[in-house]
Structures are given as C-alpha cells and as structure tokens.
C-alpha cells in the first residue's frame, strides 16, 4: 500500500525528476538490506567469506603486482581496486570490514626487504604470518607458458581450495586448515553447479622443508572420446577450413596431430553430474586439465597470533627465557598507531626463534 502511494506521489509531484519514477527504498534501509543480503549466500544461507588484500608500508613494484594477483585470486568476494593510503592503519580496515562483511585479511608487508604475508580473520584473529620465500607473478607464469589461458570468466566464481599434506599435524596447522577452508565459500556437493568450478587453489605442505606451496590453477574440462577437430569446431564457433579435403567426412575421419599426444589419464577423468558447457554434457566422461594461472608462492609459517596482528603468540611456542621478551613485544604491538613499525620489528624475532628450534 505504502509502496503504491509513494509511487503515485512521485509521479504526480516529481514529473520526471526521479529516475523513471520508480519507488525507492530509503537509501539507508536499502543499503543495510543490501549489505545483509550480500553477506549471505542465498542458496546455502551461510555467511560468505569476503576478503581484503592490502599491504602495509612501502612496497616495491613486484610486491604490488603480487598484491594485485592475490586480489584476482580471491575474486569475486574481494575488493579488486582497494586503495590504501599511507596514513591508513590497520584499525581503519577493521572498522570498514565490519559493515562490508569482510572476514579475511591478507596483508603484505616487506620488513627489512623480506616479503611477508599475513592472513588474518577479522576482527578477532587469529593471524598467521608467513614469510614469502619465493614467489612468481601471474604474468611470469603466463610468460613461461606457450599458450596461457586466463579467460576473465573464471574469476566470476571463487576458487576451490585443495589442501594437501596437512593431515596429522599439530595445532597451528590444524587451525590453519580451517582458516584456509573458510577463506572461500563452502561448497555443497548436492547443489553446486560444476560450471562454477573454474579455478583451484592448491595449498600443499611439505613437511621436511616446512614450506607451504601455494598454486593457482584453472580447470579445463575436455570431453573424452571426442577428436580434437570436433572439439575445436564446437569451441571456436568458426567455419572450418575444408579446402584440402575431398569430402566433408574427411574432416572428421582424418586423424589430427595433437590428439594422440594428449593421452587421457584415467585418474583425471570424471563423469559429470551436470552440464558444464555444450561440449561437456552431463553423464559424459570428461578429462580434467589444469593450467597454472599464478601467482605461486612458497610460504614459511613464521608466527601465529591469537588476535588480529596482536595478542598471544600461539606459534612458535615462546620458550621460558624468551617468553619475557615475547610478552614485551606484544605489549608494544597493542599500542595503536605505530603498529606497522612494531609489526615489522616483531616479524623478525619469531623467525630467529623458529630458526633455533
């Protein structure tokens, strides 16, 4: 009722002032509702994890690129064009994250020119600090490939996360596993559309080296038992070149070159539950091909804190002697405003400790 009256009133009085004379919810209410809706998955009803990827302190251009790559990786539930200013401190991001429903932070820092990545849950933590031992940008990986494949559509859905090598590990890694699993929206096997599974994030833990390998692949499905020519014909939507052929059937029957080299691995074939595209139909066998899209990183877990970049140090366990020093650092960290400096300083200590262990 109110809606109709409003509509009429607008039309009568406004006379084309508004945009098409459509009734609008009060902006504040609309915003709130929209925000609330945006934070919740409409099918599963779960809260959608959203993330901010930003950096603290001065960053060399390479790390800026890495930051942008990480943002792309975290799409679609991240701020791709997040602008941070020098005077923004962590508190600003935390304050913004609440209303926007942001649950995860990925913070790049570069203390003493050794890049670090800290992943945190907002607003309570925990915070996992990794040292980036090695990294390659998405562009580097694309350059190394003969035929880089990175269509923009694959970034419309969040990546799947595959964790490997974390089984049977102690506490910091157990919570790390849950952290990684909660980083992207949960997948319900009963309702998920296979066409939305386009990217995969592999997080592999090497126990001997204590290094977490971080890889990002795109998933490509290829129907099994379909020759390359047919596949290309279906994919490209182009009229094929038939100049050299005597008959149309030759196009199908003549063996192509590349198809034999791509021997289908039995382990990589699946029968699809639903249609993915016009080539990969439901209940047909398809081969899964992964192509790396980057970025890739080698991470070394340096520190785990219970709070957001503050609080009790859960890993590495402070030794009795060093415990006092650690406590002192924590107190310093909690002082707002100079966080960056303190964080950078405190970064180095746990490394030393872990090195000793």
């Amino acid at each position, binding site marked *: 009722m109110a809606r109709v009256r409003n509509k009429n009133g607008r039309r009568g009085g406004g006379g084309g002032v508004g945009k098409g004379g459509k009734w609008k919810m009060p902006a504040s209410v609309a915003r709130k509702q929209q925000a609330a809706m945006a934070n*919740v998955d*409409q*099918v599963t*009803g*779960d809260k959608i994890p959203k993330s901010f990827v930003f950096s603290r302190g001065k960053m*060399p251009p*390479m790390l800026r690129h890495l930051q942008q790559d990480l943002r792309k990786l975290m799409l679609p539930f991240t701020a791709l064009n997040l602008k941070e200013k020098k005077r923004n401190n962590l508190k600003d991001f935390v304050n913004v994250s609440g209303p926007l429903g942001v649950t995860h932070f990925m913070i790049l820092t570069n203390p003493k*020119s*050794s*890049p670090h990545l800290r992943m945190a849950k907002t607003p309570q933590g925990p915070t996992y600090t990794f040292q980036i*031992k*090695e*990294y*390659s*940008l998405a562009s*580097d*990986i694309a*350059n*190394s490939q003969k035929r880089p494949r990175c269509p923009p559509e694959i970034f419309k859905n969040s990546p*799947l*996360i*595959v*964790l*490997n*090598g*974390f*089984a049977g590990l102690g506490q910091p890694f*157990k919570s790390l*596993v*849950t952290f990684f*699993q*909660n980083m992207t929206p*949960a*997948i*319900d*096997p*009963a*309702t*998920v559309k*296979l066409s939305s*599974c386009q990217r*995969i994030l*592999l997080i*592999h833990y090497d126990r001997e080296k204590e290094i977490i*390998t971080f*890889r990002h*692949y795109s*998933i490509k499905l290829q129907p099994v038992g379909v020759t390359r020519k047919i596949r290309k014909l279906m994919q490209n939507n182009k009229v094929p070149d038939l100049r050299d052929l005597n008959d149309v059937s030759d196009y199908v029957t003549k063996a192509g070159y590349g198809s034999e080299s791509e021997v289908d691995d039995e*382990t*990589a074939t*699946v*029968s*699809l*539950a*639903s249609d993915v595209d016009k080539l990969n139909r*439901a*209940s047909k066998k398809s081969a*899964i091909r*992964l192509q790396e899209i980057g970025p*890739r990183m080698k991470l070394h877990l340096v520190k785990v804190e219970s709070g957001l970049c503050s609080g009790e140090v859960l890993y590495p366990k402070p030794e009795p002697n060093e415990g006092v020093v650690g406590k002192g650092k924590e107190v310093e960290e909690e002082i707002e405003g100079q966080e960056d400096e303190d964080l950078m300083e405190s970064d180095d200590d746990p490394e030393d400790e872990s090195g000793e262990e």
Partner: protein
Amino acid sequence: MAAAPQPLTSPPAAATNPHKRKKPAAAGRGKGRGKGTKQIGRHGKRQKGADELSEDHRRSRKPSDRFLKLLRKRARDYNSDDEDEDEELRLSDSDEEEEASVSGNEESGGGGVTRFEEGCRAFRVAFQKIMAKKLPDDPLGPILSAHKKLVAAKLAEDAGEGKPKGEAHREKRLAAEKGHVIPKDHLDSKDKELCKIATHGVVKLFNAVAKAQNSRKGLNPSRTKDAKVLAKETKQTFLTELNKSSNQSQKGKASSNFSKHVSKDEDEPGWAPLRDTYMLGSKLKDWDKAQASDVANEQTEIPLDDDSSEEE
C-alpha cells in the same frame, strides 16, 4: 736586467707585501736608468710635435698643483685596496716629486708612466717565463700543483662515487625483487606432482558432486524423458529419496571435505530463506558446541588426507 729576475723570484712575496716589490723597483729604476730614459725618450718623441702645447698645458696646470694632488688622492682612493699601497704610493709620489723637482715637469709626468710600465713589465716577464716553461704532457693540467692534486682527488672521487652508486642501485633492486622467481618454461617434476595433486583433488570433488547429485539428477524437469520417469515415481519414493539423499549428502560431504557444515538438521528446507536460522547467525545457537564440532570437522574435512596418507 737586474730588475727582471726580482719579480720572478718573489711573486708570492709581492702578493703578500707590495712594499718589497716597490722598493727594488724603485732601486732598479735608479740602476737601470737606461731603460727609464729610453721610455722617457719615447714619450719625449711622441710629445715632440706637441711640445709647446703640452708645455702650455702643463704650465696652465701648474697653478693647479693642489688640484693635481687632489686628483692623485682621488685616484689613490679609487685604486686603494689597503693602506700599504697608499703609503707606498705616497712614498713613490714623494720620490717622484723629488725627481720632478730635479728633472722638471716633463719627467714628473713620465715618471708615473714608467712606474706603471715597470710593474707591467715585471708581470709580463713573469708571465712569459711561466708560459715558456716546458710542460709535462699531463692531462690533469700544468698550472698549479694544488690544482693537480685537487683535480686528481676530484677525479678519484668521481670514479669512486660512480661505482657505489651503481652498486647501491643494483642492491636496492635486488632487495626489491627478493624472493621473486621467474618460473622455467617447462614443468619440472615438482610442478607436475603438484599439478597431479590438484587434479586429483578436482577429480575427487567432481566425483563427490556426481555422487551427491546423481540421486537428484532425475528431478531435472527440463528434460521430458526425465519428467516422464519422475511422474511414475510416487510421493513415497520421493520422500524416501529425500531421506536417503540427506544421509548420502552427509556422507558425500565427509568424503569430499569441501564443505564445512556437516551437521545440519534433517528437516531443514533446502532453500536457505525457509530455514528458521536464516540470517540469524546460526553459530550463536550452539556456541557451546562449536569448539568440539570444529575439531571434529577438521579431522573429517581435511581435503586429500587420504592422498597424503597414500603418498606416505
């Protein structure tokens, strides 16, 4: 000729104390009279034509001796850099005056010129001597030893500075790119293995999805064939299917390890807005159990646990 070496040997002394230069010059003038007279003679020659005129001029000027003095004083003031020179000038003036008194007006006028010429000559001789020096073929320059040293030092500094600058720049760049690795063109064994693991994970997920959705696949009403098959099935089968599917989906979730919420109430509607807990923060409902269930979830949900155990 005795006057010639003197300015050469003592140019620094002359620079510091003009008194010394002047006195020998004055003495030299006494000795080297010939030169002085020559110059005077030259002047005399020049003046010969206008002798009377100059004489007239001088005479007319003579009453203004005081005026001349004033002019001299002004000139002195104008040229004076320090008191010493003034004194010296005055001294020479008095000398000249004496000379003038001896040799007459003509000489007094020429005396000033001579004095100037003398100084100029000394400088000239000194300059010529310097210029006549044979120079070593030195790129740093011949003139002053200090200059040589300075230039050498400066060049060395430049060379020294240039190198660290480049090095610092390189170091800075290296520091900025620390950890940055450009991947090789080919996949090495490690990459292949990782790719395999990831593929395996995807396969597992797809299989789990297929398992979970196969039971529902028949429900796809867009296909007439399926719809016909469905129509045959009664409500009963549908209900049993529902119960079964919920059990199955639980299993599927446990095996797929991709979802976090294993325990859901069985009578919950499939669409989220129909559930009682929709947007209420369902986590608050069983906050006391959360910790325990989380741990349980972790153990069941770690993806590819089986894989890693297989690898080992």
